[in-house]
C-alpha cells in the first residue's frame, strides 16, 4: 500500500495515528535514546505501520526521540506518544538523558562530554 504524495502535506490529522491521544503515558526527553532488539522488531511488525518504522530505525543504532520524529516525519508530540507506548510494551529500551541532580554525576558527565568534544 503506497501513500500518494500530496504536495499540500499530510492530510491525516497529526494525532489520528495515536487514536487522538495527545499525552504520552510517560514523559520522554527529546534527546533520550531508544534501542530495539531484533526480536522486538519482529514483534513490532504487528504493532502498526508507524511503530514498525520506529522499531526498524532503532535496531541498527540508538536513536533519540527527536531523530525518530524527524526520520519518520511525525510531529514530535505524536512520536512521543507512540514511543512511550512501545517502551511500555517492551518493544523499545529507553536509555537515560543526562543526570539533572547530583554534583559528582553531573561533573562526570560534563567531563566526558568535554573529553569527547576535544577529540573531535
Amino acid at each position, binding site marked *: 500500500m503506497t501513500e500518494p504524495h*500530496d504536495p499540500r502535506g499530510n492530510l491525516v490529522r497529526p494525532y489520528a495515528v495515536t487514536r487522538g491521544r495527545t499525552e504520552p503515558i510517560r514523559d520522554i526527553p*527529546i534527546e533520550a535514546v531508544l534501542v530495539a532488539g531484533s526480536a522486538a522488531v519482529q514483534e513490532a511488525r504487528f504493532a502498526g505501520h508507524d511503530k514498525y518504522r520506529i522499531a526498524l530505525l532503532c535496531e541498527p543504532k540508538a536513536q533519540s526521540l527527536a531523530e525518530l*520524529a*524527524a526520520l519518520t516525519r511525525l510531529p514530535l*508530540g505524536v512520536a512521543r506518544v507512540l514511543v512511550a507506548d512501545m517502551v511500555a510494551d517492551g518493544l523499545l*529500551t529507553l536509555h537515560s538523558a543526562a543526570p*539533572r541532580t547530583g554534583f559528582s554525576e*553531573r561533573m562526570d558527565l560534563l567531563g566526558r*562530554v568535554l573529553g569527547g568534544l576535544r577529540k573531535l
Partner: protein
Amino acid sequence: MDFASSDRAATQPTEITSAKIVIAGGFGVGKTTLVGAVSEIEPLTTEAVMTSAGAGIDDASKVPGKATTTVAMDFGRITMADDLILYLFGTPGQTRFWFMWDELIRGAVGAAVLVDTRRLTDAFAPLDYFENRHLPYLVAVNCFDDAPRYEPEEVREALAIPAHVPLLMCDARHRDSVKAVLIGVVEHAMATLVAEHEKGHPAPVG
C-alpha cells in the same frame, strides 16, 4: 554462549547516556550552519505541532488541509562513545515559538546564544530568556564576512551581557571554531556547577 547471537542489541552497551547543548539566537543567525559544522549527520528537522498556543493566532481555515501550525527545530548528533551521545538543538528562530524553548532547555548541559553583529537587536530577546533561566550559557558572536568587526568588549557593552557570561567570537561554518564554542559551553557549565556546589546550593538544570 547465547549472548553472541544475532540480536544486535546484545552488542549495545547496557546504558547509553545522551546529553544536549542548545544553540539559541535570532532567525538567520547561523544556528543550523553551526550545528552542521560538527554534526555527524546532516542536521535533521523535528516538527512540533502547535495546538492551543496557536489558537487565535493562526487561522487554520484559510489553509485547506492544514489544521495546525508546526514549529521546526534543527538538530545534529555527535556520537562520542558507544555509551555517550551529544545532541545539538537549534531553537526555533521566530519569537512567537518560545514556549518550545522551555522543553528544549530542560536537562540541557548548557547553551550558546549566537549573535550576528549586523542585527544586534535580534539578540536581546534570546539573552533576556537565558538571563531568567537557570542554565549556564555563553554568547558566541558569529563573524559573518560582510559584518562590521567589533571588539568582544564592544559587543558585551552593546548587549549589556553580564560579566559572568563568557563571550567569544566564532565562525559558525568552521568545525574548529564551533568546537571551541561547544568546549566553552561545557567548561562554563562545569565552572558554574562547581561554584554552586561550593556555595552549597546546587540547583537542577533547566
